[in-house]
């Protein structure tokens, strides 16, 4: 028996290196900005799975941990992105066999007439087996205002599979915080079967700027210095306005900046273009945003209004 403990300490490091978990965690760290609570939880899950695997090799009891999760957070905080990474991570940890992600919403699970829901839900569950089933805006499954709603049936089948075929698939529910809270309150069975409730915090201005830089890098664009300042101002302003969706708002803003950049280049097409000019987004392209127009307006007549 003392031999076991010696080999075990040696094994954990080897297992860690062999499983490529370190790489997966590093890419998660490098490519996702912020999200500290999420990353901590992912690291904990990875550690647990590695230890469980080691326990099994030395003949200790290793119950398969339940890894169903719920991701709550405001729009654009990276729930879907993390779910996608999670599928790959769980695959490299050997928890799921294939590591694909099947993303569904209410429409894919709930049928339109009696007897339609069960086969539909089962079909999606079967497709997700060996991987991760990601249910976006899960609270739409449950419609308390209509007691004959077929969503309840889908939830029951889901619960049954989540309980009985835990080693075949991982279910991740995602949605906005307050509505998910209400969803879990009215479905206590669902809440108790989910071991990991992960809350995605909003991004700070600096984090959003870092995200924007990463997005542009991936698209092979870059900001001029003035444009970088403009973008910082844009982020601070955009946050105060309605329908702010964190990283998604930033992505949309960048897409529109690219449109304007293309237009500027097109209108000046007589001049020769350098590779650099094709890549650079200027301050004007960001300052032309409606956000700045809306923001300056209330600053002056807003005072008159109040």
């Amino acid at each position, binding site marked *: 028996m003392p031999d076991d403990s010696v080999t075990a300490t040696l094994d954990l490091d080897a297992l860690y290196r062999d499983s490529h978990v370190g790489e997966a965690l590093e890419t998660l760290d490098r490519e996702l900005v912020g999200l500290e609570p999420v990353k901590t939880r992912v690291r904990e899950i990875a550690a647990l799975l590695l230890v469980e695997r080691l326990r099994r090799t030395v003949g200790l009891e290793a119950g398969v941990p339940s890894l169903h999760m719920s991701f709550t957070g405001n729009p654009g905080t990276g729930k879907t992105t993390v779910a996608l990474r999670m599928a790959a991570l769980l695959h490299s940890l050997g928890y799921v066999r294939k590591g694909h992600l099947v993303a569904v919403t209410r429409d894919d699970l709930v049928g339109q007439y009696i007897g339609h829901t069960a086969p539909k839900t089962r079909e999606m569950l079967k497709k997700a087996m060996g991987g991760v089933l990601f249910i976006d805006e899960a609270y739409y499954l449950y419609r308390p205002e209509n007691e004959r709603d077929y969503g309840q049936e889908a939830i029951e089948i889901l619960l049954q599979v989540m309980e009985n075929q835990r080693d*075949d698939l991982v279910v991740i529910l995602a949605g906005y915080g307050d509505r998910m809270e209400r969803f879990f309150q009215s479905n206590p069975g669902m809440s108790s079967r989910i071991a990991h409730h992960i809350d995605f915090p909003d991004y700070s201005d600096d984090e959003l700027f870092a995200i924007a830089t990463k997005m542009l890098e991936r698209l092979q664009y870059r900001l001029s210095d003035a444009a970088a300042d403009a973008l910082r101002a844009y982020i601070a302003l955009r946050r105060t306005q309605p329908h702010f969706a964190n990283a998604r708002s930033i992505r949309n803003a960048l897409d529109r900046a690219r449109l304007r950049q293309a237009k500027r280049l097109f209108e000046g097409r007589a001049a020769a273009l350098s590779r650099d000019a094709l890549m650079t987004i200027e301050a004007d392209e960001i300052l032309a945003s409606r956000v700045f127009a809306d923001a300056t307006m209330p600053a002056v007549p807003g005072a008159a209004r109040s």
Partner: protein
Amino acid sequence: MKLTQGTFSFLPDLSDAQIRAQIEYCLGNGWAVSVEYTDDPHPRNTYWEMFGMPMFDLGDAAGVMAEIRECRGAFPSHYIKVNAFDATRGRESLRLSFIVNRPRNEPGFALVREEGAGRRLRYTTRAYAADEPEGARYRG
């Protein structure tokens, strides 16, 4: 008499692990897998009853295994087979079909001789089990 229809039927019955491995192979080739059952073992009975819809776009054999388990629960003493359909253009046919469940007792087939005009004999086979009405066969 052990019914020998489909692939692997001259081998001992496949274990669940072997069935799973075969299904993984099918899914790896992009074939759609379905489960069918019958209690009429006649070799010309090609169209068995479908148990649920054929399963498209599966990533893992677990879904099919669950379906087989369910079918075995509903029809413990029927013949159950797994089909793999290749939808590739120009192919569009079954690539693999094997039995995954069979009744405990298989009485086999009788040879039937039918006298025709001028001492002509026509031969055919008939499953002993088929003497019973559908659904009441293979009870023992």
